Protein backbone atom coordinates (compact mmCIF):
# COMPACT_ATOMS: atom_id res chain seq x y z
CA UNK A 1 0.00 0.00 0.00
CA UNK A 2 1.11 3.52 -0.72
CA UNK A 3 2.17 5.04 2.58
CA UNK A 4 0.28 8.21 1.47
CA UNK A 5 1.46 11.77 1.64
CA UNK A 6 -0.26 12.30 4.99
CA UNK A 7 1.96 13.99 7.56
CA UNK A 8 -0.18 12.67 10.39
CA UNK A 9 -2.04 9.38 10.14
CA UNK A 10 -3.82 7.51 12.88
CA UNK A 11 -5.73 4.27 12.61
CA UNK A 12 -8.10 2.65 15.11
CA UNK A 13 -6.86 4.99 17.80
CA UNK A 14 -8.15 4.33 21.32
CA UNK A 15 -7.21 5.93 24.63
CA UNK A 16 -8.75 4.59 27.80
CA UNK A 17 -8.52 6.20 31.20
CA UNK A 18 -9.22 4.33 34.43
CA UNK A 19 -10.17 0.72 34.99
CA UNK A 20 -13.20 -1.48 35.47
CA UNK A 21 -16.49 0.34 36.01
CA UNK A 22 -14.87 3.76 35.96
CA UNK A 23 -13.24 3.15 32.59
CA UNK A 24 -13.66 5.97 30.09
CA UNK A 25 -12.76 5.93 26.43
CA UNK A 26 -11.41 9.45 25.89
CA UNK A 27 -10.60 8.59 22.28
CA UNK A 28 -12.74 5.85 20.80
CA UNK A 29 -11.58 4.20 17.57
CA UNK A 30 -10.56 7.24 15.56
CA UNK A 31 -9.12 7.24 12.03
CA UNK A 32 -7.56 10.42 10.68
CA UNK A 33 -5.20 11.58 7.94
CA UNK A 34 -3.82 15.09 7.76
CA UNK A 35 -2.16 15.77 4.41
CA UNK A 36 0.85 18.02 4.12
CA UNK A 37 -0.04 21.71 4.21
CA UNK A 38 -3.48 21.21 5.69
CA UNK A 39 -4.71 23.21 8.65
CA UNK A 40 -7.13 21.02 10.57
CA UNK A 41 -9.27 22.22 13.45
CA UNK A 42 -10.82 19.83 15.98
CA UNK A 43 -13.84 21.17 17.86
CA UNK A 44 -16.05 19.73 20.53
CA UNK A 45 -17.37 20.34 24.05
CA UNK A 46 -14.97 19.99 26.96
CA UNK A 47 -14.32 16.39 27.83
CA UNK A 48 -14.95 15.13 24.29
CA UNK A 49 -11.38 13.85 24.01
CA UNK A 50 -9.92 16.47 21.70
CA UNK A 51 -6.93 17.36 23.89
CA UNK A 52 -6.16 13.68 24.47
CA UNK A 53 -6.24 13.16 20.70
CA UNK A 54 -3.72 15.98 20.26
CA UNK A 55 -1.43 14.48 22.91
CA UNK A 56 -1.57 11.13 21.12
CA UNK A 57 -0.74 12.73 17.75
CA UNK A 58 2.30 14.45 19.23
CA UNK A 59 3.56 11.45 21.19
CA UNK A 60 2.93 13.10 24.58
CA UNK A 61 0.73 10.14 25.52
CA UNK A 62 0.65 6.59 24.23
CA UNK A 63 -2.55 5.05 22.87
CA UNK A 64 -4.31 2.09 24.50
CA UNK A 65 -4.82 0.69 21.02
CA UNK A 66 -4.28 1.68 17.39
CA UNK A 67 -1.44 3.28 15.46
CA UNK A 68 0.04 6.77 15.16
CA UNK A 69 2.18 7.58 12.14
CA UNK A 70 4.15 10.75 11.56
CA UNK A 71 5.51 11.31 8.05
CA UNK A 72 5.58 7.58 7.33
CA UNK A 73 7.09 6.58 10.68
CA UNK A 74 5.11 4.72 13.30
CA UNK A 75 5.65 6.55 16.59
CA UNK A 76 3.46 4.81 19.19
CA UNK A 77 5.90 1.88 19.33
CA UNK A 78 9.08 3.99 19.69
CA UNK A 79 11.19 3.88 22.86
CA UNK A 80 10.82 6.84 25.25
CA UNK A 81 14.14 8.21 24.06
CA UNK A 82 13.39 7.94 20.36
CA UNK A 83 9.95 9.41 20.97
CA UNK A 84 11.41 12.41 22.81
CA UNK A 85 13.85 13.00 19.95
CA UNK A 86 11.06 12.76 17.39
CA UNK A 87 8.95 15.28 19.37
CA UNK A 88 11.79 17.77 19.58
CA UNK A 89 12.64 17.63 15.89
CA UNK A 90 9.35 17.05 14.15
CA UNK A 91 6.53 18.47 16.25
CA UNK A 92 5.87 22.02 17.40
CA UNK A 93 3.54 22.44 20.38
CA UNK A 94 1.48 25.49 21.32
CA UNK A 95 -0.41 25.29 24.62
CA UNK A 96 -3.20 27.35 26.15
CA UNK A 97 -1.00 28.36 29.09
CA UNK A 98 2.02 29.24 26.86
CA UNK A 99 4.51 27.15 28.92
CA UNK A 100 7.41 29.56 28.46
CA UNK A 101 10.47 29.36 30.70
CA UNK A 102 10.03 32.38 32.96
CA UNK A 103 13.77 32.86 33.62
CA UNK A 104 14.64 33.08 29.91
CA UNK A 105 14.09 36.00 27.55
CA UNK A 106 11.70 35.73 24.60
CA UNK A 107 14.60 35.05 22.23
CA UNK A 108 16.14 32.44 24.54
CA UNK A 109 12.79 30.66 24.84
CA UNK A 110 12.59 30.41 21.06
CA UNK A 111 16.23 29.28 20.77
CA UNK A 112 15.93 26.54 23.39
CA UNK A 113 14.34 23.76 21.29
CA UNK A 114 16.80 24.47 18.47
CA UNK A 115 19.75 24.01 20.85
CA UNK A 116 18.17 20.83 22.28
CA UNK A 117 17.84 19.51 18.73
CA UNK A 118 21.58 20.01 18.24
CA UNK A 119 21.75 23.27 16.29
CA UNK A 120 24.67 25.57 16.88
CA UNK A 121 24.24 28.66 19.05
CA UNK A 122 24.62 30.88 16.01
CA UNK A 123 22.08 28.98 13.94
CA UNK A 124 19.61 28.97 16.82
CA UNK A 125 20.01 32.70 17.41
CA UNK A 126 19.54 33.53 13.74
CA UNK A 127 16.44 31.39 13.38
CA UNK A 128 14.94 32.79 16.61
CA UNK A 129 15.42 36.34 15.50
CA UNK A 130 13.79 35.63 12.12
CA UNK A 131 10.81 34.03 13.82
CA UNK A 132 10.35 36.79 16.39
CA UNK A 133 10.35 39.23 13.50
CA UNK A 134 7.73 37.11 11.76
CA UNK A 135 5.40 37.19 14.78
CA UNK A 136 5.93 40.93 15.16
CA UNK A 137 8.04 40.81 18.33
CA UNK A 138 11.53 41.73 17.08
CA UNK A 139 11.60 44.61 19.56
CA UNK A 140 10.65 42.36 22.50
CA UNK A 141 13.41 39.75 22.05
CA UNK A 142 15.20 40.63 25.31
CA UNK A 143 12.05 40.80 27.43
CA UNK A 144 11.20 38.16 30.01
CA UNK A 145 7.80 36.47 29.66
CA UNK A 146 6.59 38.37 32.75
CA UNK A 147 7.21 41.62 30.88
CA UNK A 148 4.99 40.55 27.97
CA UNK A 149 1.20 40.54 27.53
CA UNK A 150 -0.68 37.25 27.13
CA UNK A 151 -0.95 37.72 23.39
CA UNK A 152 2.77 38.48 23.08
CA UNK A 153 3.64 35.42 25.16
CA UNK A 154 1.55 33.21 22.91
CA UNK A 155 3.27 34.68 19.84
CA UNK A 156 6.64 33.80 21.41
CA UNK A 157 5.29 30.27 21.97
CA UNK A 158 4.28 30.07 18.30
CA UNK A 159 7.76 31.20 17.23
CA UNK A 160 9.24 28.57 19.53
CA UNK A 161 7.00 25.87 18.03
CA UNK A 162 8.35 26.75 14.57
CA UNK A 163 12.06 26.94 15.37
CA UNK A 164 12.92 23.41 14.24
CA UNK A 165 10.77 23.63 11.10
CA UNK A 166 8.42 20.94 12.42
CA UNK A 167 6.48 18.59 10.18
CA UNK A 168 3.38 19.58 12.08
CA UNK A 169 2.37 22.18 14.66
CA UNK A 170 -0.09 20.95 17.31
CA UNK A 171 -1.98 23.69 19.13
CA UNK A 172 -4.21 23.06 22.17
CA UNK A 173 -6.68 25.91 22.77
CA UNK A 174 -4.08 28.46 21.61
CA UNK A 175 -6.38 31.43 22.25
CA UNK A 176 -8.06 30.07 25.37
CA UNK A 177 -6.34 32.61 27.63
CA UNK A 178 -6.43 35.57 25.25
CA UNK A 179 -8.74 38.54 24.79
CA UNK A 180 -10.22 39.42 21.41
CA UNK A 181 -7.41 41.70 20.22
CA UNK A 182 -4.70 39.21 21.18
CA UNK A 183 -6.71 36.39 19.58
CA UNK A 184 -6.76 38.35 16.33
CA UNK A 185 -2.96 38.77 16.44
CA UNK A 186 -2.53 35.01 16.83
CA UNK A 187 -5.10 34.29 14.10
CA UNK A 188 -3.25 36.62 11.73
CA UNK A 189 -0.08 34.58 12.30
CA UNK A 190 -1.94 31.28 11.83
CA UNK A 191 -3.45 32.60 8.61
CA UNK A 192 0.03 33.51 7.34
CA UNK A 193 1.42 30.10 8.28
CA UNK A 194 -1.54 28.44 6.60
CA UNK A 195 -0.88 30.24 3.32
CA UNK A 196 2.80 29.33 3.67
CA UNK A 197 1.77 25.65 3.75
CA UNK A 198 2.52 24.76 7.37
CA UNK A 199 0.71 21.58 8.46
CA UNK A 200 -1.36 22.29 11.57
CA UNK A 201 -3.73 20.58 13.95
CA UNK A 202 -5.58 22.97 16.26
CA UNK A 203 -7.86 21.90 19.06
CA UNK A 204 -10.24 24.70 19.98
CA UNK A 205 -13.70 25.61 21.15
CA UNK A 206 -13.44 29.07 19.55
CA UNK A 207 -15.34 29.26 16.24
CA UNK A 208 -13.00 31.99 15.00
CA UNK A 209 -9.95 29.81 15.45
CA UNK A 210 -11.72 26.89 13.76
CA UNK A 211 -12.64 29.17 10.88
CA UNK A 212 -9.00 29.79 10.00
CA UNK A 213 -8.66 26.07 9.21
CA UNK A 214 -9.07 24.32 5.85
CA UNK A 215 -10.96 21.46 7.44
CA UNK A 216 -12.96 20.96 10.60
CA UNK A 217 -13.55 17.76 12.52
CA UNK A 218 -16.19 17.71 15.28
CA UNK A 219 -15.73 15.38 18.22
CA UNK A 220 -18.29 14.02 20.70
CA UNK A 221 -17.56 11.37 23.34
CA UNK A 222 -14.22 10.42 21.83
CA UNK A 223 -15.53 9.99 18.30
CA UNK A 224 -15.65 12.09 15.14
CA UNK A 225 -19.20 13.07 14.30
CA UNK A 226 -18.51 15.44 11.43
CA UNK A 227 -15.69 16.13 9.00
CA UNK A 228 -16.14 19.28 6.93
CA UNK A 229 -14.04 20.90 4.28
CA UNK A 230 -14.14 24.66 4.88
CA UNK A 231 -11.74 25.78 2.17
CA UNK A 232 -12.51 26.36 -1.46
CA UNK A 233 -16.27 26.55 -1.14
CA UNK A 234 -16.92 30.20 -1.65
CA UNK A 235 -20.35 31.54 -0.96
CA UNK A 236 -22.03 34.19 -3.04
CA UNK A 237 -19.71 36.95 -1.99
CA UNK A 238 -19.25 39.21 0.97
CA UNK A 239 -21.77 41.80 -0.14
CA UNK A 240 -24.45 39.17 -0.10
CA UNK A 241 -23.45 38.12 3.39
CA UNK A 242 -24.17 41.54 4.81
CA UNK A 243 -27.43 41.83 2.91
CA UNK A 244 -26.29 44.24 0.18
CA UNK A 245 -27.35 41.85 -2.57
CA UNK A 246 -30.17 39.38 -2.72
Amino acid sequence: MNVSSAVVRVHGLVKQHGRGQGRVRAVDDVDLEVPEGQMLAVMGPSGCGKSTLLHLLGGLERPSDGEVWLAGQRIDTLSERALARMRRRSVGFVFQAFHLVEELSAAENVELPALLAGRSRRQARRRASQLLERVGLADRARHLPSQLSGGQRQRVAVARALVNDPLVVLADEPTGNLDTAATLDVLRIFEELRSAGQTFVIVTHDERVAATADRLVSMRDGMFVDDTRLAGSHTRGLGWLIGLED
Partner: protein
Amino acid sequence: MQDAVLAMLAKEPSHGYHLHARLRRSLGPLGESMNRGQIYVTLARLERAGLVVCERADGLPERPERKVYALTPAGQQRVATWLAEVGWPKPDLAEFHLKLAAAAAARLADPVELVAAQRRELLRRLREVQQAALAEPAGSGAGLLLEGVVLRLQADLRWLDACERAWSKVDDESEGA
Protein backbone atom coordinates in the same frame (compact mmCIF):
# COMPACT_ATOMS: atom_id res chain seq x y z
CA MET B 1 -43.91 32.03 7.20
CA GLN B 2 -45.40 30.16 4.21
CA ASP B 3 -42.72 27.47 4.49
CA ALA B 4 -43.22 27.03 8.21
CA VAL B 5 -47.00 26.63 7.81
CA LEU B 6 -46.48 24.11 5.00
CA ALA B 7 -44.00 22.11 7.05
CA MET B 8 -46.41 21.92 9.97
CA LEU B 9 -48.96 20.34 7.66
CA ALA B 10 -46.44 17.63 6.82
CA LYS B 11 -47.24 15.86 10.08
CA GLU B 12 -50.98 15.60 9.36
CA PRO B 13 -53.79 17.61 7.74
CA SER B 14 -54.96 20.35 10.10
CA HIS B 15 -57.51 23.02 10.78
CA GLY B 16 -56.27 26.58 10.57
CA TYR B 17 -56.89 27.16 14.27
CA HIS B 18 -54.91 24.05 15.12
CA LEU B 19 -51.97 25.26 13.01
CA HIS B 20 -52.16 28.62 14.71
CA ALA B 21 -52.01 26.96 18.14
CA ARG B 22 -49.00 24.86 17.14
CA LEU B 23 -47.12 27.88 15.81
CA ARG B 24 -47.91 29.82 18.96
CA ARG B 25 -46.68 26.94 21.09
CA SER B 26 -43.43 26.63 19.12
CA LEU B 27 -42.71 30.34 19.23
CA GLY B 28 -43.80 31.00 22.81
CA PRO B 29 -43.95 34.68 23.75
CA LEU B 30 -42.39 35.58 20.38
CA GLY B 31 -45.50 34.31 18.64
CA GLU B 32 -47.96 36.27 20.75
CA SER B 33 -48.55 38.94 18.14
CA MET B 34 -49.44 36.36 15.51
CA ASN B 35 -53.19 36.29 14.90
CA ARG B 36 -55.29 33.59 13.36
CA GLY B 37 -56.13 35.83 10.39
CA GLN B 38 -52.51 35.73 9.26
CA ILE B 39 -52.65 31.94 9.17
CA TYR B 40 -55.81 31.96 7.05
CA VAL B 41 -54.31 34.50 4.63
CA THR B 42 -51.19 32.33 4.33
CA LEU B 43 -53.26 29.19 3.82
CA ALA B 44 -55.34 30.91 1.10
CA ARG B 45 -52.14 31.89 -0.72
CA LEU B 46 -50.76 28.38 -0.44
CA GLU B 47 -54.04 26.99 -1.79
CA ARG B 48 -53.94 29.33 -4.80
CA ALA B 49 -50.35 28.25 -5.42
CA GLY B 50 -51.47 24.62 -5.50
CA LEU B 51 -49.38 23.65 -2.48
CA VAL B 52 -52.28 22.77 -0.20
CA VAL B 53 -55.81 21.55 -0.75
CA CYS B 54 -58.70 22.41 1.44
CA GLU B 55 -61.25 19.79 2.38
CA ARG B 56 -64.49 21.01 3.78
CA ALA B 57 -66.25 18.84 6.31
CA ASP B 58 -69.62 17.92 4.75
CA GLY B 59 -72.91 19.32 5.95
CA LEU B 60 -71.44 22.12 8.02
CA PRO B 61 -71.82 25.81 7.40
CA GLU B 62 -69.06 27.36 5.34
CA ARG B 63 -66.80 28.93 7.92
CA PRO B 64 -63.03 29.05 7.79
CA GLU B 65 -62.67 27.09 11.05
CA ARG B 66 -64.36 24.09 9.40
CA LYS B 67 -61.75 23.70 6.71
CA VAL B 68 -59.07 21.04 6.92
CA TYR B 69 -55.90 21.76 4.99
CA ALA B 70 -53.58 19.09 3.56
CA LEU B 71 -50.39 19.15 1.51
CA THR B 72 -50.50 18.44 -2.22
CA PRO B 73 -47.59 16.51 -3.78
CA ALA B 74 -46.17 19.89 -4.87
CA GLY B 75 -46.50 21.09 -1.28
CA GLN B 76 -44.66 18.04 0.01
CA GLN B 77 -41.91 18.67 -2.51
CA ARG B 78 -41.61 22.26 -1.35
CA VAL B 79 -41.36 21.19 2.31
CA ALA B 80 -38.56 18.75 1.46
CA THR B 81 -36.69 21.49 -0.40
CA TRP B 82 -37.12 23.93 2.47
CA LEU B 83 -35.84 21.44 5.04
CA ALA B 84 -32.76 20.73 2.93
CA GLU B 85 -31.98 24.42 2.39
CA VAL B 86 -29.09 25.78 4.40
CA GLY B 87 -29.67 29.45 3.73
CA TRP B 88 -28.84 32.06 6.31
CA PRO B 89 -28.68 35.33 4.42
CA LYS B 90 -30.31 37.22 7.25
CA PRO B 91 -30.28 35.21 10.40
CA ASP B 92 -33.92 34.29 10.73
CA LEU B 93 -33.85 32.40 14.00
CA ALA B 94 -37.59 31.84 14.24
CA GLU B 95 -37.74 30.27 10.80
CA PHE B 96 -34.92 27.86 11.61
CA HIS B 97 -36.44 27.07 15.00
CA LEU B 98 -39.76 26.18 13.34
CA LYS B 99 -37.93 24.15 10.73
CA LEU B 100 -36.42 21.95 13.43
CA ALA B 101 -39.73 21.58 15.23
CA ALA B 102 -41.63 20.74 12.02
CA ALA B 103 -38.96 18.31 10.84
CA ALA B 104 -39.07 16.47 14.14
CA ALA B 105 -42.88 16.43 14.37
CA ALA B 106 -43.35 15.01 10.85
CA ARG B 107 -40.23 12.81 11.16
CA LEU B 108 -39.12 14.19 7.80
CA ALA B 109 -35.54 14.94 8.80
CA ASP B 110 -33.28 14.62 11.82
CA PRO B 111 -33.09 18.02 13.54
CA VAL B 112 -29.53 17.26 14.71
CA GLU B 113 -28.50 16.69 11.10
CA LEU B 114 -30.20 19.94 10.01
CA VAL B 115 -28.22 21.77 12.69
CA ALA B 116 -24.98 20.15 11.50
CA ALA B 117 -25.62 21.18 7.88
CA GLN B 118 -26.36 24.72 9.00
CA ARG B 119 -23.20 24.83 11.09
CA ARG B 120 -21.05 23.70 8.15
CA GLU B 121 -22.48 26.47 6.00
CA LEU B 122 -21.99 29.13 8.68
CA LEU B 123 -18.41 28.07 9.34
CA ARG B 124 -17.58 28.36 5.65
CA ARG B 125 -18.97 31.87 5.67
CA LEU B 126 -17.16 32.72 8.87
CA ARG B 127 -13.91 31.57 7.28
CA GLU B 128 -14.49 33.74 4.24
CA VAL B 129 -15.41 36.85 6.22
CA GLN B 130 -12.63 36.35 8.71
CA GLN B 131 -10.01 36.03 6.00
CA ALA B 132 -11.23 39.32 4.58
CA ALA B 133 -11.22 40.87 8.07
CA LEU B 134 -7.67 39.73 8.85
CA ALA B 135 -6.47 41.12 5.53
CA GLU B 136 -7.69 44.63 6.44
CA PRO B 137 -5.12 46.97 7.96
CA ALA B 138 -5.63 47.88 11.61
CA GLY B 139 -8.10 50.72 12.04
CA SER B 140 -9.79 50.27 8.68
CA GLY B 141 -13.51 51.04 8.57
CA ALA B 142 -14.21 48.04 6.36
CA GLY B 143 -12.41 45.90 8.94
CA LEU B 144 -14.79 47.16 11.59
CA LEU B 145 -17.82 46.19 9.53
CA LEU B 146 -16.36 42.76 8.77
CA GLU B 147 -15.73 42.31 12.50
CA GLY B 148 -19.44 42.90 13.05
CA VAL B 149 -20.33 40.19 10.52
CA VAL B 150 -17.84 37.83 12.20
CA LEU B 151 -19.36 38.40 15.63
CA ARG B 152 -22.90 37.81 14.35
CA LEU B 153 -21.88 34.56 12.67
CA GLN B 154 -20.14 33.54 15.87
CA ALA B 155 -23.29 34.22 17.87
CA ASP B 156 -25.35 32.18 15.40
CA LEU B 157 -22.89 29.29 15.69
CA ARG B 158 -23.16 29.31 19.47
CA TRP B 159 -26.92 29.22 19.22
CA LEU B 160 -26.62 26.21 16.88
CA ASP B 161 -24.57 24.48 19.59
CA ALA B 162 -27.46 25.06 21.97
CA CYS B 163 -29.90 23.70 19.36
CA GLU B 164 -27.74 20.61 18.93
CA ARG B 165 -27.60 19.96 22.66
CA ALA B 166 -31.36 20.34 23.04
CA TRP B 167 -32.33 18.17 20.06
CA SER B 168 -29.74 15.49 20.89
CA LYS B 169 -31.39 15.21 24.29
CA VAL B 170 -34.80 14.76 22.63
CA ASP B 171 -33.24 11.96 20.51
CA ASP B 172 -31.74 10.23 23.53
CA GLU B 173 -35.00 10.41 25.43
CA SER B 174 -37.07 9.00 22.58
CA GLU B 175 -34.56 6.20 22.07
CA GLY B 176 -34.61 5.40 25.77
CA ALA B 177 -38.41 5.31 25.85
